[in-house]
């Protein structure tokens, strides 16, 4: 420097610059620490407990947390006090709306006031028909305790379902325990279930056997290359694979086997001609012959 300033102001300027840098570094450091803490906390809080259900029309959880301003207007416009805001310390992200189906389920209002109330679109305004809501999916989770699974006719979850016979149907199965009765199995269909939680609320057990779960817990996913043969056949109007080769059964004369359901067919006119000889040894020897042949077959 050519023109050397007097030393006092120069060191003062240096000091103030150093002070500024130091102050900035400390402030920046404090802010970074805080941000790091909150950031880690926010990573954790993205996982919503399975029992907490978002209001209808809620965006995917990650998008929802970027859109919801925690104002509670949806809570205010819910006529059934279903929705509440999570408080600090809850397992649900602080300030965000949710409901617990077992306490108060969603009543599926036709005009969807909670969605209308949302100022930010965290509850998607594109949802106009409440039947299109997908808050979660009902899953009959405890087959060991569900009364219908034991052969009783409880049916309560089925009866209260607002989308009865579409979201939940009763599927008749054979009751192998009694041998002569039917089981009416409540069966949830994901293409109609809105996740309102009325089934969970009304389950008569001490603790519910049917629960609303988030989709990612409730649903599996088919292998992407899998195709249901019968659906493809229906779509194409014909079988897409070569028809089965007619199987040759080694059956006694007068008998045949239908693979498609009838099973063993014994021709009436052949009933006189018994496949078994009068000599029991013949039958035994024949069986031994079959066994040997089967053993050879498996070796190959």
């Amino acid at each position, binding site marked *: 420097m050519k023109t050397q300033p007097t030393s006092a102001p120069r060191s003062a300027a240096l000091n103030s610059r150093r002070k500024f840098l130091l102050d900035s570094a400390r402030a920046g450091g404090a802010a970074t620490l805080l941000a790091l803490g909150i*950031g880690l906390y926010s990573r954790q809080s993205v996982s919503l407990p399975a029992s907490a259900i978002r209001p209808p029309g809620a965006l995917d959880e990650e998008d929802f947390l970027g859109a919801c301003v925690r104002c509670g*207007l949806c809570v205010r416009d819910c006529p059934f006090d279903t929705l509440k805001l999570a408080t600090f310390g809850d397992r649900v*992200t602080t300030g965000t709306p949710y409901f617990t189906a077992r306490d108060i389920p969603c009543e599926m209002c036709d005009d969807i006031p909670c969605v209308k109330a949302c100022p*930010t679109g965290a509850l998607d305004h594109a949802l106009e028909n409440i039947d299109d809501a997908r808050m979660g999916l009902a899953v009959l989770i405890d087959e060991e305790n569900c009364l219908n699974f034991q052969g009783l006719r409880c049916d309560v979850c089925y009866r209260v379902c607002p989308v009865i016979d579409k979201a939940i149907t009763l599927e008749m199965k054979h009751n192998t325990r009694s041998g002569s009765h039917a089981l009416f199995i409540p069966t949830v269909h994901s293409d109609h279930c809105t996740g309102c939680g009325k089934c969970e609320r009304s389950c008569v057990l001490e603790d519910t056997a049917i629960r609303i779960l988030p989709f990612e817990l409730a649903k599996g996913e088919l292998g992407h290359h899998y195709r249901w043969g019968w659906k493809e056949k229906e779509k194409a109007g014909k079988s897409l694979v070569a028809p089965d080769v007619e199987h040759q059964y080694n059956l006694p004369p007068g008998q045949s086997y239908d693979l498609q359901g009838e099973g063993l067919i014994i021709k009436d006119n052949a009933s006189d001609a018994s496949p078994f000889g009068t000599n029991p040894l013949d039958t035994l020897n024949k069986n031994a012959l079959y066994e040997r042949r089967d053993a050879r077959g498996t070796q190959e």
Partner: protein
Amino acid sequence: MNQTHAARHPGAEAIADKGWLLANKWLLARRSSQLAILLLFLLGPWFGIWLIKGNLSASLILETVPLTDPYILLQSLFAGHSLESTAIIGGLIVIAFYMLLGGRTYCSWVCPVNIITDSAQWLRDHFKITGASSLSRNTRYWILGATLILALVTGSISWELVNPVSMLHRGLIFGMGLAWFVILAVFLLDLLVSRRAWCSHLCPVGAFYGLLGTHSLIRIRADARDQCDDCMDCFKVCPEQQVIRPALKGHMKGSAEIIGPVITSQNCTNCGRCIDVCAKDVFHFGLRTNNIVNNTTNSKNISKQLNHSSGVEVL
């Protein structure tokens, strides 16, 4: 610092001169405003009178006028959410309001945390707890920036997980849960750790509103600054002490140029406490017009000079 002044309760002279009521009128007005706003929000849940619904983050007046906190909207934008028109209209109304009335008017007239931190400060003065913050007052801007980056990185409005401002207001209306611990932390921070730590050093909400009101119309003016008898009461009560000096002392000898008499700093919260405690009625609310402002470099020099010349450390 002058011994007699230090021992005296700030505002005592004003009370003697003007009477208790006039010497506390802005404080009373401010508390009334804070409580009235809170009560307006509580009328619905408590009495079923729905004049306003929601909370400070977003609300709806009489089922028609939306209000939205522009800071939370900004975070939402950073988080990658495209906003609905209702939120944007609500945000613009709030922005216009505070650009006119002073950004940090929010802090002293609306924010419920102010009651907490003012209480802490009152106790701090009462029990003579000292200890200045070693943190810069600019820390809040760093935190403000950090909250926005955080929103960008996490894709969620992460700051709202811990924000004591919205947490207290929302809590009082919708249920506190464990949020009292956060509020207690802020209270203890201001009471024991350092003076005005939260509102004047750390809070990014205040920092945001401060920036919003950088050019706001309503300001506190020190038009009668010639009357100032250097009693220091305004400095003692001011939560942002650094903002007073340029306006009050900007005409003193030693200043390269004359500046003021408007408190132009964005960090002034328009709380009016300086008006209350001044026995000489130096301050009053007014517009930012008729103010001598220098270009930035000059005013920087002047404030630097003022810092050196006054010889009083008021952090």
